[in-house]
């Protein structure tokens, strides 16, 4: 039973960072293992010392000296303060460049021409626009393996967070604002993407596959998408904006600057008059 549990457990871990499938995630996994290794020096002494000392100096053991007034030693103070400070300094030295490097805004991973994707969080689905290609998808993110993927995020509703556990960390998406995330996928395959920021009733279902393909397969996919003959028009957008869930969808065309329009419509700074109208409405 236990063995089975552990076996199955490893299966669970396959869905996460330990089974990293992209350069960003790999770097994060490497950092995780390194930091954990260092932190063992924090954990092990305590776990050994606490039971050992408590048991050795138990009341019934009269073999050892009892020094009720002993309460200070400079040597011990040194051991108590200095190594932990050292560890923190070491971790800080690791942390600084790692944070710069994995900054989701600037990190450039992968090779070749970047693929630009604009992600819009809705209740309870993700819309992905490919401005360069003029197509859009819902609840599936198709990407070419190996190439850098540059995502701009916003939300058409409450705040959400886009996490790709095996590929990259997460970043929030907020209405009226634009955040960014960069990642790449090592090889073709299907990986999970999800919203991790609670957003209401069907939040648990707000997951989607990231489909990584070879270059030719991606090109073929794009061609197929353009050929579906279903543009992301007013009606389609109205349907998406409704609070519900949906399966994967593909749109063959997207109005230009659609993403900027969404940002402006949800209170973004670039469109000051959008706000004015609702103020009038409120005042009247």
């Amino acid at each position, binding site marked *: 039973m236990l063995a089975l549990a552990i076996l199955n457990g490893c299966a669970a871990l396959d869905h996460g960072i330990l089974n990293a499938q992209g350069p960003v995630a790999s770097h994060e996994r490497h950092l995780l293992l390194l930091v954990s290794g260092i932190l063992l020096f924090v954990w092990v002494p305590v776990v050994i010392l606490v039971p050992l000392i408590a048991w050795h100096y138990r009341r019934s053991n009269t073999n050892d000296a009892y020094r009720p007034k002993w309460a200070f030693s400079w040597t011990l103070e040194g051991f108590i303060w200095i190594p932990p400070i050292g560890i923190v300094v070491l971790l800080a030295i690791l942390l600084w460049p790692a944070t710069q490097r994995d900054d989701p805004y600037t990190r450039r991973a992968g090779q070749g021409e970047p693929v630009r994707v604009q992600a819009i969080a809705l209740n309870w689905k993700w819309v992905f626009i490919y401005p360069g290609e003029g197509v859009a998808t819902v609840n599936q993110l198709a990407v070419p393996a190996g190439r850098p993927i540059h995502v701009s995020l916003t939300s058409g509703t409450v705040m959400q967070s886009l996490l790709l556990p095996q590929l990259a960390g997460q970043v929030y998406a907020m209405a009226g604002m634009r955040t960014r995330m960069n990642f790449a996928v090592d090889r073709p395959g299907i990986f999970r993407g999800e919203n991790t920021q609670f957003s209401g009733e069907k939040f648990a279902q707000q997951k989607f596959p990231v489909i990584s393909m070879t270059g030719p397969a991606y090109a073929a996919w794009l061609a197929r998408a353009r050929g579906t003959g279903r543009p992301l028009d007013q009606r389609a957008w109205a349907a998406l904006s409704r609070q519900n869930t949906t399966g994967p969808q593909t749109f063959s065309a997207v109005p230009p600057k659609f993403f900027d329009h969404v940002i402006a419509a949800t209170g973004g700074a670039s469109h000051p008059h959008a706000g004015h109208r609702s*103020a009038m409405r409120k005042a009247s």
Partner: protein
Amino acid sequence: MSEPSLQHAGINMGGTENRPDANAESGIFGFWIFLMSDAVIFALLFAIYGTALAATAGGPTPAREFKLDSALAETLLLLTSSLTIGLTVLAMKYDETRRAVLAWMGLTFVLGIAFLALEGHDLATMFADGAYPTRSAFLSAFFALVPLHGIHVLAGCVWMLVMAAQIGAYGFDARVRINVLRLSLFWHFLDVIWIAILSVVYLQAHLP
């Protein structure tokens, strides 16, 4: 203990006794802590105001809404009332006559009410001009910060009425003294907050 009299003006409870009253000391200190906690609230509202300055959403702007002349008048009123509340405390400490104390406190009260009237007039003008809190984040931040100070001033005025009644009923017993001291701290504190409002809200709106 060279200058116990300066500790908090008037903290010595007895007429001649020089030992600060232990009870009064913790009573005043506790009130100080409360004021500092309140100061954090104001500080955060200032910070929010700072982040919301540009968020006018196409609506009224600071420069248009804030009038320097009435801000100056309000400042002078409040500053003077800070002086008069101080003189109230000194009167309580040295004269111990109800008339002197009530006179100074009455003057402070009038100045406070005048301040409130002026501020109320300002806010009404803003409303008439379409600058109401639901208009934009900037105005929301303004209407959280400045009227909160006004509410404090109002509370101070009510407090003065209560203290006047107590002075009438009990003279200057230990609790009246300690509460007048607290009231004066509160009032001075509001003056300090107003200086910040003046600089951050009103003067900043009219930078060259």
